[in-house]
C-alpha cells in the first residue's frame, strides 16, 4: 500500500517541512516560493491590480481533461484575467484529509505546477493543513491570484450597452458534463472532456488589440445562463441570445437530455463571454479563431434595452422564453 498523508504533515514540524521541500517545492518551486518566508515578496507590480480568490472542492478529484489541481490554477488565473488583467502571482492553500494517498497528492501538485507554467504565473506562497479523517472530503484547495490590469478601462459586468453583441469563445457545458458523468452513481458514459484551460493569453491578445471590450466573463458555476443573468442585472440591459447559435457538443446535449439538465447552466472552465460593440465583433472573432482554445467561438446574441435585467432565449423555432437564473443547483430529474 502506498504512503498516505498523516496528520503530522500539517503539524508545522519536521514532517511538514519534508512535505514542503520534497513535494511542493519540487513541483511548484520558483525564486519567490523557495525563500519560504512568511509572505511573498512581490516585485514588478505597478498600476491597477486585479485580485481574485476561489476554493476548489470538486468531486471527483480527477476527471477527463484535468483534476482539482489544474482546475485550481486555471480557475483563479481566468478570474483575474477577466478584468482585462495579466495574472502574475498565485497563492495556494491545501486542506487535506488525513489518509489521502501521497500519490494522489503528488499528482495533483504536479499538475498544478504544470498549469502554472502554462499560464505563466508563479505560485509564490501557500499553506498546508491536514485535518482528521472525515473533516473534509479528500482535499480542498484555495487559490488567490493577483495580476496587473492591462485594459483601460477594465472590462466589467456593468458595462454592457444596448447594441453590443455577445460572443462566446467555444462550446458550452463541457466541464459540467465531464464532472457529472464521472460522479459516483451516474451510470452513463461520455467522451466529453473538461475544457479546463488558462484563458489569460487569449484575454491579453483581445484587450491589447480591442480597447473597447465592455465585458469579459468566464461562465463557470451556473454556466452561460447564470453569467448572462448577472451581466443583464449589473448593466440593466436585456441579453437576447439565439439558441441555434450557441455552440454545444452533441455529446453534451445527449448527456443533458438523459439527465434532464440544461447545458446552458453547466459550468465551463476554459471559455469566456465577450461583450463588445458590434463593429468590433469580427476582429474579436478573428483573434479568438487564431487561438487553439477558442476555435468554436461564435456570436450568440445581442444586448438591448427592451427588458432590463432579463435574459431571453430565441429558440430554434423562433419562439421566445426567459432564461432565468436557477434557484439552487440543477438536479437530475425523476423520470
Amino acid at each position, binding site marked *: 500500500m502506498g504512503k498516505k498523508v498523516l496528520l503530522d504533515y500539517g503539524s508545522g514540524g519536521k514532517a511538514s517541512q519534508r512535505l514542503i521541500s520534497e513535494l511542493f517545492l519540487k513541483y511548484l518551486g520558483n525564486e519567490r516560493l523557495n525563500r519560504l518566508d512568511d509572505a511573498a515578496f512581490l516585485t514588478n507590480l505597478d498600476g491597477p491590480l486585479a485580485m481574485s480568490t476561489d476554493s476548489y472542492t470538486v468531486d471527483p478529484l480527477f476527471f477527463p481533461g484535468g483534476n482539482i489541481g489544474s482546475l485550481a490554477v486555471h480557475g483563479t488565473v481566468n478570474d483575474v484575467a477577466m478584468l482585462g488583467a495579466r495574472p502574475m502571482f498565485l497563492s495556494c492553500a491545501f486542506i487535506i484529509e488525513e489518509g489521502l494517498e501521497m500519490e494522489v497528492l503528488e499528482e495533483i501538485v504536479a499538475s498544478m505546477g504544470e498549469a502554472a507554467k502554462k499560464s505563466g504565473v508563479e505560485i509564490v506562497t501557500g499553506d498546508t493543513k491536514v485535518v482528521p479523517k472525515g473533516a473534509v472530503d479528500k482535499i480542498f484547495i484555495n487559490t488567490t491570484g493577483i495580476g496587473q490590469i492591462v485594459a483601460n478601462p477594465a472590462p466589467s459586468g456593468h458595462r454592457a450597452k444596448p447594441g453590443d453583441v455577445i460572443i462566446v469563445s467555444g462550446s458550452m457545458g463541457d466541464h459540467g458534463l465531464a464532472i457529472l458523468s464521472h460522479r459516483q452513481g451516474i*451510470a452513463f458514459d461520455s467522451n466529453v472532456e473538461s475544457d479546463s484551460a488558462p484563458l489569460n493569453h487569449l484575454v491579453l491578445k483581445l484587450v491589447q488589440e480591442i480597447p473597447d471590450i465592455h465585458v469579459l466573463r468566464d461562465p463557470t458555476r451556473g454556466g452561460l445562463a447564470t453569467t448572462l443573468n448577472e451581466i443583464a442585472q449589473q448593466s440593466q440591459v436585456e441579453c437576447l441570445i439565439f439558441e441555434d447559435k450557441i455552440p454545444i457538443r452533441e455529446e453534451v446535449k445527449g448527456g443533458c437530455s438523459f439527465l434532464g439538465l440544461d447545458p446552458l447552466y453547466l459550468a465551463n472552465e476554459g471559455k469566456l463571454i465577450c461583450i463588445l460593440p458590434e463593429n468590433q465583433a469580427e476582429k474579436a472573432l478573428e483573434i479568438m479563431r487564431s487561438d487553439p482554445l477558442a476555435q468554436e467561438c461564435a456570436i450568440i446574441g445581442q444586448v438591448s434595452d427592451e427588458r432590463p435585467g432579463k435574459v431571453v432565449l430565441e429558440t430554434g423555432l423562433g419562439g421566445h*422564453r426567459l432564461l432565468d437564473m436557477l434557484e439552487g443547483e440543477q*438536479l437530475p430529474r425523476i*423520470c
Partner: protein
Amino acid sequence: MNLHDGLKDPKLCRNVLRQIEAEVDEQFRFMEVCGTHTVAIFQSGLRSILPDKIIHLSGPGCPVCVTHEREVAAYLELAEKEDAIIATFGDLMRVPGPDKKNLKDAQAEGARIKVVYSAFDALKVAMENPQDKVVFLGIGFETTAPTIAATLKVAKEQGINNFYVLSFHKLVPPALKALVQDKEIKVEGFLLPGHVSTIIGLEPYKFLAQEYNIPAVISGFEPLDILQAILMMLRQKNNHEAKVTNNYKRAVADIGNPKARQVMDEVFEVVDTFWRGIGVIPQSGLGLNRDYERFDALKAFNLTLPDVAPIAGCRCGDVLKGKVRPDECPLFKKACSPASPVGPCMVSTEGSCAAYFKYMVE
C-alpha cells in the same frame, strides 16, 4: 443530421404550425399530462408561437407536484429518525412540508440524506451501510415503478434486510379518469405521456375516446412531435371523432412493455391513494404487496400519514386540474417563487408554476 435534429427542424415545425393555424377556428383546449412535455413546450418556445386559440393546460404530470401534503409530511418525519438514511431523487429535496421545512433543511439539521440517480444506487447505499436502515423515497409514475420493483426483487433475492421503500407511486390513467369526470374541466384533447406509455402502452387510455369522446395522442418530446400531436387532436375534434393514437412509435410499443409490467405486478399492488389538490383517487397508487411487506417503510417505521391542512391560498390543485393557469394564482410571483416556493408546482423542475415563472416572457 440525426433523428432528433430532424424533429427540431424549424422548417418542418413551421409547416405543421401553419397547418394548425389554418385548421383551428374555435378555441381548442388541450392538456399535457407529463411534466417533461410541460417543460418541452416552454423550453422550445412553442407556447409563444402557438395560435392564441390553442389553449394549453398543464395537467397532473409531474410526480413531485402530485405528491400529497401528507406524503411529504411522512417522509419528512422519516428524515428525523436517527437510524434512517434517506435515499431520494434530487427533485424532492426542496419540496416544502407542512411547516415549510424541506429535506434540505432536514439535511442541514443532521438528517442523513443521499441524493441518488436510481433505485439501484439506493440499494447500494444500503449494502454499504449495513448498520443503518436505508429508505428509498418511491415517488413517481409507471415510469419509475418498474426499476424500483426490480431493485426490490434483487434486495429480496440477496436477503438485504436494511433496505426499505416508501411507496407513494401513482398511476396515470385513473388520474385522467378523475379529471374527465370533473365537469368543470373542459379538456378537448390529451397529449399523453411518452415515458409512462413506454410501460403501459395504448390500452389503458382507450376509455378517453370510447367513453368520453376525447382524442388523445401519445407523443414524444421534440417540438415536431408535440406540434404533430396537436394537429392530430385538432383534426379529430374538427371531424367530430375521437381516437387514442400512438404517435411516438420510435419509443413506445402499442402494447407497452409487458416485462416491466410483470415486475411491477410481482412487487406492487394497486391501492387507493391521495393526489395533491385532487384528493383520493380510487385504485390509483401502488403499495408493496404481501410478498414484499417487509420492505415497506410505512410499516417498518410505523408511519401514519398525518392529516395536513392544505396550504392557504395555494391553487396547486386547480393548476393541476387545468382550472386555473399558474399566473392566475394570487400567490404567483408574490408569496410564491422558486426561492420560497409555497406549493410543489413551484419547486419541481417539471412543475407548471415553475415553468411559467422560469420561461414566460411577459
